[in-house]
């Protein structure tokens, strides 16, 4: 068995151990690490100063020993290529194959005083510890170098509480990736973050105070910048000193020369990452380093088919929150290349395409401020195909929030055929609230499903016009739902009258009453048809069933996880038959019984409850269902028991009143048969546990859910969901689904992750406690309704008669009843409007 020694435990050296292990799990590998830590994520270095501090480690000592990797803390000082041994200060290790993954060191320009106290480089965790110690004694800090790493370092200084500056020798920031115009925009973004930027500045001298500590910089033009701390991030130099001592071939300007299989001039020695020089180039990015590791692993294990043919320097990154992308021939160095650019000083974006001399192919580009098109544009450059559309059209952004992509004037209300422009024009024309908009455009007067979108357009248009956007719940409450929720929570109100008297006006309305009822239910979980609460409830909650177009109701008992016994199926069938109900299987894996008259609801439910059913809350703004597949219990592909988890979650969150309905799904493997990614929350099984997704939606605006956390056990799943759902319940707007809530959230999924997983708001305990209260106080509303004998009178159609509504008429279609259409009705007494 051959023994492989890897010198260096940076990101690329570590990746090599993984690639080798993946190809052969029996290998014997020794890693020499100069730093006292196992490999960590150097790309995320600036997060070291976050609070709480994230663990940047890429692995653990235990994981290494599991894989037969011996990790040795020590610097390789010499190599005997004849004997095939490598020596540190205290040991000598034999190798069959040696890999140099020694990385690079920060370039420090030859300036006087560059070793003075307060001067640092930005490379290792030790560097950061030293910076942190010094930063606590000073107030200002400067980074020399305006590249990717330099800007990160400036962010790090700012996180340490210093007034930060960046000094770049080139005339623009990120000179290797973006052009002057892009650099100018980036500079503006960085300056807005309160980091000052000096470009085209040649540092001449580091100035010291009387104690010999740093006090500032002097530039070639004689100007000075006050700064008590300095960080060099002015490029890297390959660490090839060991290779030089070994007598390996190195480049003129440094770097260990490697071939396409990452072998050095000694076939038993490989080099990968920033120390390696391939075809005259050093790669200072992690992606090409990873490619080298993959090729080296193949070659070491005898597979010569993999080759490293250089790497694309295309990058897309988010730098201090600013999106920056650069791909292909970004600087138009190809002879005859032409450029088109859009500099949008309103949206603060800059987009440039570099085209071939004949203008038919994209060969490169620069994006600053918005990299949403990076994927398609960079692949155009990579594929090099001739364009089928005018190149300029590629840079025109899509209309944000458009219902149908590609249309600049999409239909918003499909019932009335009202388009976006018509709505915006109506707002401009003076329709400044929903009622006025509905009246003059008719948008939202049909099914009403587009009203959230209409409201959004109204608010956007009002904001564009410089008008104050009124986010009041309605004319009776000058508060948003979230504000009202907090008022009710903090003051402990339990009744409508208390809330109205303290914070509202008039008698309330169909908007604020259900909103307050829902908030009270979220907090106290009382029976919603108590006398004091019943008149507040929305249409469906008021009768614990879903009203249909003819005034009858649908009945939908809970079928947790979609799992149902034959006896219960029979019971549903019997009830449906007895009461003449139409049956339909729903998308949420349960059975809807439609066509029940108001007076039939209590007897239907007493039979259903006797058969073991409970309310399904299909009528509530609350949890609908947790859809599931059969998972590992039955399915040959299943890796986890999705049905059990779905049942458990459905029973946990049933009845939770929320700003809008919410749906869930649990899939037992990555095939995703439960469509979890289209739900408000979804779980997808992995070999190690569950991936948790949130904010998905079908409906008017389909959205894929976003990944919140990975490989969780059920306890973690429950805990994060408790927090997530309660956070949503507390902070969303009225009738706002989780997808829009998440869309509008400042910081989006990242912020949500901070709140839910890292508890950045310190709310986790409170949210979990609120959910525990909900679970403990849950009761089936239909059972409560049947227990409340006097209250059952509300289910009579007439207060003064046992007759029923004769206007309801049925027609049989496909062996089942359905409401008669108007032309099918036999004449009945009804009021004409004359």
């Amino acid at each position, binding site marked *: 068995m051959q023994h492989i020694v890897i010198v260096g435990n940076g990101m690329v050296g570590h990746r090599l151990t993984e690639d080798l292990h993946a190809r052969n799990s029996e290998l014997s590998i020794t890693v020499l690490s100069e730093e006292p830590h196992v490999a960590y994520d150097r790309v995320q270095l600036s997060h070291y100063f976050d609070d709480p501090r994230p663990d940047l480690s890429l692995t653990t000592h235990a994981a290494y020993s599991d894989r037969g990797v011996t990790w040795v803390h020590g610097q390789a000082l010499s190599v005997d290529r004849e004997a095939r041994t490598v020596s540190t200060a205290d040991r000598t290790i034999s190798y069959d194959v040696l890999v140099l993954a020694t990385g690079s060191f920060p370039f420090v320009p030859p300036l006087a005083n560059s070793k003075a106290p307060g001067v640092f480089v930005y490379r290792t965790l030790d560097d950061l510890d030293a910076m942190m110690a010094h930063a606590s004694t000073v107030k200002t800090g400067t980074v020399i170098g305006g590249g990717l790493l330099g800007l990160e370092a400036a962010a790090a200084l700012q996180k340490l509480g210093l007034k930060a500056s960046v000094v770049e020798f080139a005339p623009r920031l990120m000179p290797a990736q973006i052009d002057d115009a892009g650099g100018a925009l980036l500079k503006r973004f960085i300056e807005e973050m309160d980091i000052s930027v000096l470009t085209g500045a040649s540092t001449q001298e580091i100035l010291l105070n009387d104690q010999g500590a740093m006090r500032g910089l002097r530039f070639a033009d004689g100007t000075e910048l006050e700064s008590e701390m300095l960080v060099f991030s002015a490029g890297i130099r390959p660490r090839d000193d060991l290779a030089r001592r070994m007598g390996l071939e190195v480049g003129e300007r440094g770097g260990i020369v490697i071939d396409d299989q990452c072998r050095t001039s000694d076939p038993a020695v490989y080099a990968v990452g920033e120390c390696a020089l391939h075809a005259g180039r050093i790669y200072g990015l992690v992606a090409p380093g990873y490619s080298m590791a993959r090729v080296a692993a193949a070659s070491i294990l005898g597979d010569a088919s993999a080759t490293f043919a250089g790497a694309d320097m295309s990058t897309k990154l988010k730098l201090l929150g600013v999106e920056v992308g650069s791909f292909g021939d970004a600087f138009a160095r190809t002879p005859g290349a032409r450029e088109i650019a859009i500099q949008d000083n309103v949206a603060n974006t800059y987009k440039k395409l570099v085209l071939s001399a004949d203008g038919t192919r994209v060969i490169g580009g620069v994006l600053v401020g918005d990299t949403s098109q990076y994927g398609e544009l960079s692949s155009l450059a990579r594929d090099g195909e001739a364009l089928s559309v005018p190149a300029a059209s590629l840079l025109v952004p899509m209309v944000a929030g458009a219902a149908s992509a590609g249309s600049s004037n999409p239909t918003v209300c499909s019932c009335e055929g009202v388009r976006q422009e018509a709505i915006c024009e109506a707002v401009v024309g003076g329709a400044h609230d929903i*009622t006025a908009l*509905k*009246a003059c455009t008719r948008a939202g*007067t*049909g*099914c*009403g499903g587009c009203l959230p979108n209409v409201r959004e357009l109204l608010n956007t248009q009002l904001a564009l016009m410089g008008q104050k956007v009124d986010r009041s719940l309605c*004319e*009776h409450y000058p508060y948003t739902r979230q504000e009202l929720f907090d008022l009710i929570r903090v003051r402990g109100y339990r009744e*409508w009258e208390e809330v109205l008297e303290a914070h509202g006006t*008039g*008698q*309330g*309305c*169909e908007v*604020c*009453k*259900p909103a307050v009822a829902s908030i009270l239910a979220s907090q106290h979980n009382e029976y919603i048809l108590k*006398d004091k609460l*019943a*008149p*507040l409830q*929305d*249409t469906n909650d*008021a*009768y614990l069933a879903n*009203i249909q*177009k*003819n*005034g009858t109701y649908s009945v939908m008992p809970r079928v947790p996880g979609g799992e149902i016994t034959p006896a219960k199926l029979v019971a549903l069938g019997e009830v449906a038959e007895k009461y003449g109900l139409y049956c339909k299987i729903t998308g949420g894996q349960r059975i809807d019984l439609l066509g029940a008259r108001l007076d039939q609801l209590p007897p239907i439910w007493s039979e259903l409850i006797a058969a073991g059913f409970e309310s399904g809350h299909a009528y509530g703004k609350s949890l609908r269902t947790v859809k599931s597949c059969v998972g590992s219990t039955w399915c040959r592909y299943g890796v986890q028991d999705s049905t059990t988890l779905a049942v458990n979650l459905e029973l946990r969150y049933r009845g939770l009143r929320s700003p809008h309905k919410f749906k869930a799904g649990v899939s037992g493997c990555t095939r995703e048969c439960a469509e979890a990614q289209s739900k408000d929350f979804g779980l997808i099984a992995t070999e190690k546990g569950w991936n948790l997704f949130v904010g998905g939606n079908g409906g008017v605006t389909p959205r894929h859910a976003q990944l919140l956390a990975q490989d969780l056990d059920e306890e973690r799943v429950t805990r994060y969901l408790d927090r997530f759902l309660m956070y949503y319940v507390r902070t969303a707007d009225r009738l706002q689904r989780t997808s829009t809530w998440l869309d509008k959230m400042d910081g989006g999924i990242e912020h949500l992750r901070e709140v839910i997983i890292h508890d950045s708001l310190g709310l986790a305990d409170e949210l979990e406690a609120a959910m525990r209260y909900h679970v403990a106080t849950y009761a089936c509303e239909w059972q409560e309704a049947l227990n409340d004998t006097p209250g059952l*009178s509300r289910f009579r*159609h*007439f*207060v*003064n*008669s046992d*007759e029923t*509504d*004769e*206007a309801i008429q049925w027609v049989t279609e496909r062996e089942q009843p359905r409401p008669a259409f*108007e032309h099918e009705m036999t*004449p*009945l*007494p*009804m*009021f*004409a*409007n*004359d």
Partner: protein
Amino acid sequence: MTQFTPTAPAAPHAESRWTPVCAVNDVLPGGGVCALVGGQQVAVFRVAGRVFALSNFDPFTRANVLSRGLTGSYTSAGQERYKVASPLLKHTFDLETGLCLNEPGVSVPTYAVRVEDGRIWIGEAWTGSAD
């Protein structure tokens, strides 16, 4: 039952035309019930300490559902007025005039109401304003 035929509005207090339907307390404050009055469905509401009666028929959906709507108030010309929203498509109607607030020109019939000894009496329908 017979087809409804409009008749000339009778005086609200013509004794013979009044029908007792229920106790005031049968209607929760802010809530509504449906009463059968002379073969017609009448929605009866209790809002702001007053009782109102409208046809139970929602002209937009042609269903007898208005008594199940949510009541509330709105401000018109500086005055607080009362309304009900249909539970189906949420069209709102003024409780005194029956006028639809979202769709000019549409209204539902209103009924005279009297409360005596804690009981609600419903009188004749009229289609005009209650004022």
